[in-house]
C-alpha cells in the first residue's frame, strides 16, 4: 500500500513519482491510501491518472482508498481520457522518396508556370493600358538597385584587390606582374562581377521579395487580389522582375568598375605596374564579348533571383514561422540557382569558344 501526504500538487508530484517508482513497477494489486490528502491540483490528478494507466498496462488492480468527499469531487472534475491509439507505422523509404520527388515536381511545375505568367504579362502588358505598373517598377528599381549599390561596390572593390594580391605572389616569380590585369579584368567582368552582385542581391532583395509575398499570402492579401480579378503574378511579381532586369546590369557594371579599381590600386602600389601600362593592358585583355557575357549573366541571375524568391513567397502556407522558413529557403534556393546557371553558362560559352 502506498500512502499520499496531505498535499498532492505540482510541487510534490516529482518527489512522489520518484518515491513510488519501484512499487508502481511491481506486480499484484496496488492500493493508494489518500486518507491524509486535503489538497490536490490538476498535476496531482494527472499523477493519479498516470498511476492508473501504468497499472492498467501491467494488468494490476488499482484501488484508491480513504478519499475525502471534497477530493473525490475534485477528481470527478477531470476526465480520464483513453490513450490515443498507437501510431501506425510511417511510410517506408521508397514511399518517402516518391513523396519527395513528387514535391520537387510540384515546385518545378509551379516555377515554370510562374515564369510563363511573368513572360506573358510582361509582353502583353506592354500593349495594354495599365498593363504594367510603371510607378511600382520605379519604386522597386530604387529598392533593389540604387540601395544595393553601396554594399555591392564595397564587396567588389575588396574582391578585386584581394585577387590582385593573391595572384601577385605567383606572377612575380615569372616576372609576369602585368598579367594581373588580364586576371582581374576577365575574371571580374565575365564571372565574379555578375556573381557577387547576384549573391548580394539574392540575400538583400530576394529575401525581401519572399518575405513580402509570404506575408501577403498568409494574411490572405493574395487571395483578395485574386478575388478582385487581379492576377498576383501581374500585380506583384512582374514589376519586381522588370525592375531588377533594368537595375542589375547597372549594379553589375558598378561591381566590375569598383573591382577593377581595387585591383588597379593593388597593382600600382604593390606590383609596380604603372597606371598607363595597367590601362593599356586592360584594353588589350578585355573584349566587348566579355562585357556582354557578364551583362547577359547579370540579367539571367536577376530574373532567377526574383522568380525563385517570388515562388517561395507565393507557396507559403501556415503562420508567422512559415514566413521565416520561406525567406530562408528563398535565399538558399536563389543562390543555388544562380551558381548552377553560372556553371551552365560557363560550359556553353566554353564549348562555343566564346
Amino acid at each position: 500500500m502506498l500512502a499520499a501526504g496531505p498535499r498532492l500538487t505540482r510541487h510534490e508530484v516529482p518527489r512522489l513519482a520518484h518515491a513510488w517508482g519501484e512499487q508502481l513497477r511491481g506486480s499484484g494489486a496496488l492500493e493508494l491510501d489518500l486518507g491524509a490528502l486535503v489538497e490536490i491540483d490538476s498535476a496531482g490528478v494527472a499523477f493519479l491518472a498516470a498511476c492508473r494507466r501504468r497499472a492498467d498496462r501491467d494488468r494490476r488492480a488499482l484501488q484508491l482508498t480513504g478519499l475525502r468527499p471534497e477530493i473525490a469531487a475534485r477528481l470527478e472534475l477531470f476526465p480520464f481520457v483513453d490513450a490515443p491509439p498507437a501510431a501506425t507505422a510511417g511510410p517506408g523509404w521508397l514511399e518517402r522518396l516518391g513523396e519527395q520527388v513528387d514535391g520537387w515536381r510540384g515546385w518545378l511545375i509551379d516555377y515554370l508556370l510562374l515564369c510563363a505568367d511573368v513572360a506573358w504579362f510582361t509582353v502583353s502588358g506592354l500593349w495594354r493600358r495599365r498593363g504594367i505598373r510603371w510607378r511600382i517598377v520605379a519604386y522597386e528599381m530604387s529598392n533593389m538597385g540604387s540601395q544595393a549599390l553601396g554594399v555591392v561596390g564595397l564587396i567588389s572593390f575588396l574582391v578585386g584587390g584581394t585577387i590582385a594580391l593573391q595572384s601577385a605572389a605567383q606572377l612575380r616569380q615569372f616576372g609576369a606582374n602585368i598579367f594581373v590585369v588580364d586576371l582581374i579584368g576577365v575574371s571580374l567582368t565575365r564571372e565574379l562581377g555578375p556573381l557577387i552582385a547576384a549573391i548580394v542581391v539574392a540575400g538583400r532583395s530576394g529575401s525581401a521579395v519572399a518575405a513580402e509575398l509570404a506575408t501577403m499570402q498568409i494574411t490572405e492579401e493574395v487571395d483578395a487580389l485574386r478575388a478582385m480579378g487581379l492576377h498576383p503574378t501581374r500585380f506583384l511579381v512582374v514589376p519586381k522582375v522588370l525592375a531588377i532586369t533594368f537595375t542589375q546590369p547597372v549594379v553589375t557594371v558598378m561591381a566590375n568598375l569598383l573591382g577593377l579599381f581595387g585591383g588597379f590600386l593593388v597593382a600600382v602600389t604593390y606590383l609596380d605596374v604603372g597606371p598607363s601600362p595597367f590601362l593599356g593592358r586592360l584594353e588589350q585583355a578585355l573584349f566587348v564579348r566579355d562585357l556582354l557575357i557578364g551583362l547577359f549573366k547579370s540579367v539571367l541571375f536577376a530574373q532567377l533571383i526574383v522568380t525563385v524568391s517570388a515562388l517561395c513567397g507565393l507557396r507559403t502556407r501556415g503562420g508567422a514561422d512559415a514566413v521565416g522558413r520561406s525567406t530562408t529557403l528563398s535565399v538558399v534556393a536563389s543562390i543555388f540557382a544562380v551558381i548552377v546557371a553560372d556553371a551552365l553558362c560557363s560550359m556553353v560559352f566554353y564549348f562555343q569558344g566564346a
Partner: protein
Amino acid sequence: MTPSATVEISGLVARYGEREILSGVDLRVAPGELHVILGGSGCGKSTLLKHAVGLLRPHAGTVRLLGTDITDADEPLLEAALARVGLLFQGGALLNSLSVGDNVALPVRERFPDIPAPVLEELVRMKLALVGLERAADLTPPQLSGGMRKRAALARAMVLDPEVLFCDEPSAGLDPITAAALDRLLLALRDRFGMSVVVVTHELASIEAIADRVTMLDGGRVIASGTLTEVRRRPEPLVRAFFDRVGEVAYGERRSVLDVLGNEGQP
C-alpha cells in the same frame, strides 16, 4: 489568505504617447465572479486587460492582482503573480512551430521541469479533454479552425490551474455555435473550479449568456458598472444604444446612398 478581490484597479490612467486611452478607471473583480468588460471598438477594453495583468504599466493609479500590488512590481514579483493567472489572447497566440499538445505542455515544462513525462502527458490530455480537443494533441495550430485554436489556447491558459482567467475577445470571429460553446466552457470553469474569469468583449449575445457583473467603458472612462440587469436599466444614451443595438445614437447620423440618390426607380 484569500484576497477579497482577485483584481482591484483604482484610478487607472493609461497613455500611448500623448494620447490618453484610460482616464481614472476603477475595476473590482470578486473571487469566483465572471466579469465582463464591454464597450465599443477602441474604447480601451484591451488596454485595461493588459494593465490588469501587468503587461502594461499604468501612467497613474494602482493595480492589485490576487492581493499583490503589481503597479510598479519588479519582474520576480510580477512573474509570481502571473503564475496564478491564465490569459487567453484574441487570436489564441499558439506557437505555430509546436504541436497543440506541446503548446499546452509548454508552461509546465518551463516552470516545472521535474514533472515526469507520463504525468505531463496525462495533464495535457486532461486539459485538452476539458475543451473537447483530446484528439487534437498531435495537430499543429495551422491545422485547426479558429474555434479550435481558441479552445486549445484556453487549455494552455488553464494548464497551471489559474485562480483568475483573462480572456480578450474570446468569441470574436467565431460562428454563433462555436461562440456559445466557448461561453459554456467559461461558465463551467467558473462553476466547477471556482475560477474568476474576466472577459473583454463587445458581443452582446455572449455578454448576456455569461456575465455576473459588467463594466462598460467609453472613451477610456467607466460609464456603467454593476450586474447586467442593473446596467441594462441605466438611462445613459450610449448604454441604451449598446444594448438596444441602435447604431445611430452611438455613431451619429449617416446618410445612405439611397438617401442621396433618392428613390427613383423604386417600385
